[in-house]
């Protein structure tokens, strides 16, 4: 019996490992272990003033800090009957786009790219492919700028609050973002053009179509909505988050697991592009039409390409969004009408649908429930690790470890990992 064990995953946000047990040519067991230390955040929120919730939940994750803040704001405002002005909604869209593009660029260009070109990391890739890596880093830096301008800091900015923003950016700052976005579009097009020529391996392609889930963003492609679209035309309200995710605890992970109708499902960029791709516009739509095919429905490795299309969409979207933001005056902060209520709010974080639910009584949180995208993807990751291991065992057993890591990394989990700390343990 052979065990493939990845102990400490490097280039990751968080702490995780993989254990694949192989008996001859048969895959016996696949486990994605999450040993990130628990913080029990939901329990810490109990008894807190609802305003303080926004100081705590963004700290769940430094990469998705604004997604947590936004999902929390949506839930709290719904619960307390706050409706904000158009400018506030547009500014929130802008901040979320900043986070999506920053996180997607980090994953595509820094973490996943070396896999597709067969390099151990971007440092080794830099000599041969400097231009594309520099493009990626510029896009990432741009995302950081958008996050900083809208939220006040690159990480854990406190500017977006219930009812509005503490302060609005100056037109000068918004114009700078617009200028940079326009400048980056042709560079991103080149990157898409270049990367679309790379062949996506089929070792982790399933036979059946994946069940995808993402928020229904309305007529246009986007990252905010009140209902969840599910493959094969199903649509459910975010209030049904418990039935949509069915969280459960497993013994090898401090992250919970999710299924829908007892089946695993996928969230994230690949889900969004599969379900909403027809709603893309401009260059991103052009490349969607050019690149998309039925393999995207069966192979998680296409997630990086979906992220790339989203990068292009965001860069093209931001200039018009800024023009719209500038048309409105800075509104006053809206004060809640109620002090009690309960509601769910969701946004698409870079890695997929993020749900926040709160029950409030006299302004105090009495129940809190948060479901993160990585939780939702973990079962699916194990399923595809098994598919990949079975396919790889039929062929050569060379490189099996690094290929399995590639599968996990495709999901861009908060435990996305590198190819260098694999341990093969012979029993």
């Amino acid at each position: 019996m052979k065990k493939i064990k990845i102990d400490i995953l490097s280039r990751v946000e968080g702490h995780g490992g993989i254990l694949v047990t192989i008996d001859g040519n048969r895959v016996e067991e696949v486990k994605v272990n999450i040993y990130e230390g628990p913080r029990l955040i939901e329990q810490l929120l109990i008894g807190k003033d609802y305003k303080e919730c926004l100081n705590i939940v963004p700290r769940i994750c430094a990469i998705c800090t604004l997604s947590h803040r936004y999902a929390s704001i949506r839930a709290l405002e719904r619960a307390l009957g706050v409706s904000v002005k158009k400018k506030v909604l547009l500014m929130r869209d802008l901040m979320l786009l900043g986070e999506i593009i920053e996180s997607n660029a980090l994953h595509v260009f820094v973490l996943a790219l070396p896999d597709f070109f067969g390099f151990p990391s971007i440092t080794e890739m830099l000599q041969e492919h400097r231009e594309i890596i520099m493009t990626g880093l510029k896009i990432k830096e741009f995302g950081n700028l958008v996050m900083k301008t809208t939220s006040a800091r690159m990480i854990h900015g406190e500017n977006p609050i219930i009812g509005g923003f503490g302060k609005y950016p100056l037109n000068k700052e918004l114009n700078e973002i617009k200028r940079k976005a326009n400048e980056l579009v042709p560079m991103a097009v080149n990157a898409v053009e270049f990367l679309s020529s790379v062949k996506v391996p089929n070792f982790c392609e399933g036979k059946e179509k994946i069940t995808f889930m993402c928020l229904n963003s309305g007529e246009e492609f986007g990252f905010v909505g009140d209902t969840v679209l599910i493959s094969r035309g199903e649509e459910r309200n975010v209030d049904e988050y418990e039935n949509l995710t069915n969280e459960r605890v497993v013994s090898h992970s401090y992250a919970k697991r999710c299924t829908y109708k007892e089946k695993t499902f996928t969230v994230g960029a690949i889900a969004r592009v599969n379900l909403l791709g027809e709603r893309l516009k401009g260059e991103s739509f052009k490349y969607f039409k050019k690149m998309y095919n039925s393999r995207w429905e069966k192979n998680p490795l296409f997630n990086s390409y979906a992220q790339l299309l989203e990068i292009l969409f965001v860069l093209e979207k931001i200039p018009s969004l800024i023009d719209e933001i500038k048309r409105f005056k800075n509104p006053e902060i809206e004060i809640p009408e109620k002090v009690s209520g309960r509601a769910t709010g969701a946004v698409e974080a870079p890695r997929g649908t993020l749900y926040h639910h709160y029950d409030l009584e006299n302004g105090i949180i009495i129940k809190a429930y948060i479901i993160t995208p990585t939780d939702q993807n973990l079962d699916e990751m194990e399923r595809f690790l098994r598919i990949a291991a079975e396919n790889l065992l039929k062929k050569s057993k060379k490189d099996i470890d690094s290929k399995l890591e590639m599968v996990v990394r495709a999901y861009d989990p908060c435990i996305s990992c590198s190819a260098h700390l694999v341990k093969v343990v012979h029993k």
Partner: protein
Amino acid sequence: MKKKIGIYGFTGCAGDQLTIIHSEDKLLTFFDKAEIVSFSMAKSNNKECELDIAFIEGSITTEEQRKRIIEIRERTNILVPMGACACFGGIQSMKLGDGKYKERYEKVYGKKKITIDTTFESQPINAFVKVDFCIPGCPISARQFFSVFTKLINDFRPVLYSFPVCTECKWHENLCLLIEKNLPCLGPITRAGCGAICLDHSIPCVGCWGPVDEANVAYEFKLLIEQGFSPEAIIKKFRMFGGKVSQKLVKNLIGKYV
């Protein structure tokens, strides 16, 4: 000879390591002046050897982490916790010592046993090992990190801000949120270094950098009572980020002042 550096993450959001990673331009210049032997969030091929300096993010919440921080300390000359979690315990230590950790744990994970590790209530790094300096922040400021980094690799003693956010805010000539706007701003009792960024945005300070040395907690407490907050709500507010240090600071407030 170049100093050997290790950068490690324990329980937290990874925002301090990410702050370092976000400083791409500086990163290459500064890191060239030392040998970064281990930084698993940012690079591969990490070596675990004797270190001149270790920077530690996150608090300790599991038995494996406890063993690992002791092991890192044993092979490190200068050990520097960075960020509110490592320095004080962070948000996950806000209810430290209330005796209800097990109850909270079971509310999240139920009774099902998770076998990969055993957990306990979050504690800062200095609860387990000796620490040499602390870089506070939630997240840390890149500027302060690189200032400490540069001093340490050149064998100088780093200088950390020892005044409150309130001072930084005054430099920016902001209208006082605490006195003039009647908002619960923790600027006077919170350690500076963030650049009073929230206050510049008319958002009251929530104390994310932890308590400043010799913080006048009693007077801040009195001001917030006057604003109409209950003693319990104020104590919860004071304890949001400061973990173990805040736990001590608020200890006698209610008995003494209410």
